């Protein structure tokens, strides 16, 4: 009985999540499922992320939104549409899009035509039918080019631009190859000249100076690189091997 207060203190702490602070900045919050000298595996509620220990600054226990989400979800009846919608919005506001997705799916299971859940999951109503985002873009005449939906005209522009880029790259590679060949020829010529000189010297002919070699034809040496930080398709955690 005397141990009770101590246990009461321990039990909630054990339920707390783990916050893995990365060196410099950034965190991974979830539940550690495995940890060794090399990596720490963290379940973030939508998958497991492996973090190299060499990148970890410290790990602390703290209550996190995932704890709250799971506690609230456990109390909801499967057919409580309003409850799941409310929890989904809460999850979204607290940085848990995968849990929000799950909660919206739960709402849809009981109310397949629920507009709030459908829209939150990316559906669009077209001619009385709910279409996924991809289906809606396709139905609206957009085409997918290199993983992105765009107008056919834009796809044509991108395609032409990519072809021009490729042509420039090919020209650059060709220039580099030509340069390499010129280098090799130059080396061979140098060698031949040395041999000839030796032969000349051997024959005691007086023949002054070294020959000039033509300048190199430089290709394009720099390429535009770099994109700004954006969510893009990489909005799902992928670092360190998401499972």
């Amino acid at each position: 009985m005397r141990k009770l207060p101590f246990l009461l203190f321990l039990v909630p702490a054990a339920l707390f999540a783990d916050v893995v602070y990365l060196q410099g900045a950034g965190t991974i919050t979830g539940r550690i499922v495995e940890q060794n000298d090399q990596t720490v595996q963290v379940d973030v509620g939508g998958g497991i992320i492996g973090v190299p220990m060499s990148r970890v600054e410290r790990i602390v226990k703290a209550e996190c939104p995932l704890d709250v989400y799971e506690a609230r979800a456990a109390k909801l009846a499967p057919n409580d549409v309003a409850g799941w919608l409310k929890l989904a919005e809460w999850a979204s506001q607290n940085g848990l899009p995968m849990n929000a997705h799950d909660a919206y799916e739960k709402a849809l299971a009981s109310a397949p035509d629920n507009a709030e859940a459908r829209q939150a999951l990316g559906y669009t109503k077209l001619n009385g039918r709910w279409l996924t985002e991809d289906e809606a873009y396709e139905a609206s005449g957009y085409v997918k080019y290199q993983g992105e939906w765009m107008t056919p005209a834009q796809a044509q522009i991108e395609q032409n631009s990519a072809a021009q880029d490729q042509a420039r790259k090919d020209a650059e590679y060709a220039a580099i190859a030509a340069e390499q060949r010129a280098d090799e020829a130059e080396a061979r010529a140098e060698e031949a000249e040395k041999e000839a000189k030796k032969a000349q010297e051997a024959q005691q002919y007086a023949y002054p100076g070294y020959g000039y070699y033509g300048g190199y034809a430089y290709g394009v040496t720099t390429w535009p690189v770099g994109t700004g930080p954006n969510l893009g398709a990489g909005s799902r955690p992928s670092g360190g091997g998401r499972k």
Partner: protein
Amino acid sequence: MNRVFSLAAATLFAATLAVPAAPPKAPPTTPSVDAIVADYVAARGGLAKIRAIKTLRQTGRIFEGQGREALVVREVKPPGRIRVQFTIQGVTAVFASNGTTGWKVSPFEDDMALKDLPDEVTHEAIEQADIEGPLVDWKAKGHTVEFVGNETVSGRAAYKLKVTLNSGTVRYSYIDVASHFEVRADSTRQVKGRDLQIETTFTDHKKTGGVLFPRRIEIGAEGRPQRARVVVDKVEVNPTLSDALFERPAPSQR
């Protein structure tokens, strides 16, 4: 369609015959750039209130469709200091600049190491750290602003201004004729090595600290239907932000 066109042409032709030539009607006068900008500054809350903002924190969410969303915290402390934090499913990435150099820790990418931001990204970040925006006191900042036309944004009349930053970067700013709010901005951004026209619209303006901030921002690229929607849940004016937040963290010893 042709019938309508013919009828219109005939009517116009008849009108030119019937009505004696009148002096051409003067087009509606467009205010000068200075007047457009002055109205915009006043609508935002006035120069004094804008200038009173020394630091800024905006917290919100960004939605990119198909369940792709993130919590975003954007902290700004001029000159040039900006820090943006994204949290997705318990994973938080940080991108920051101290006004000179930029760095990031992005667990969304393969390597979770502290890394330098490319120069062009840092440059863009620094430009975004101007809390006032480039139109405020643009002459003193060395920018140029030109009126380039009247446009319609979301069904409302807007003045289109060409803003050439002192760095040479060109942006277009659309000022609503009635409200004087900035309702759209166009810029060029390099994505996958190519220039892409980015269109950003601003709606749901509300004041914090006496200064107007848009609470809904939509970002799209030309020729693409996808839109990134930013919902700003909270704006904090003059929060305490230490300079250290923006500095590249020193590598710790483990």
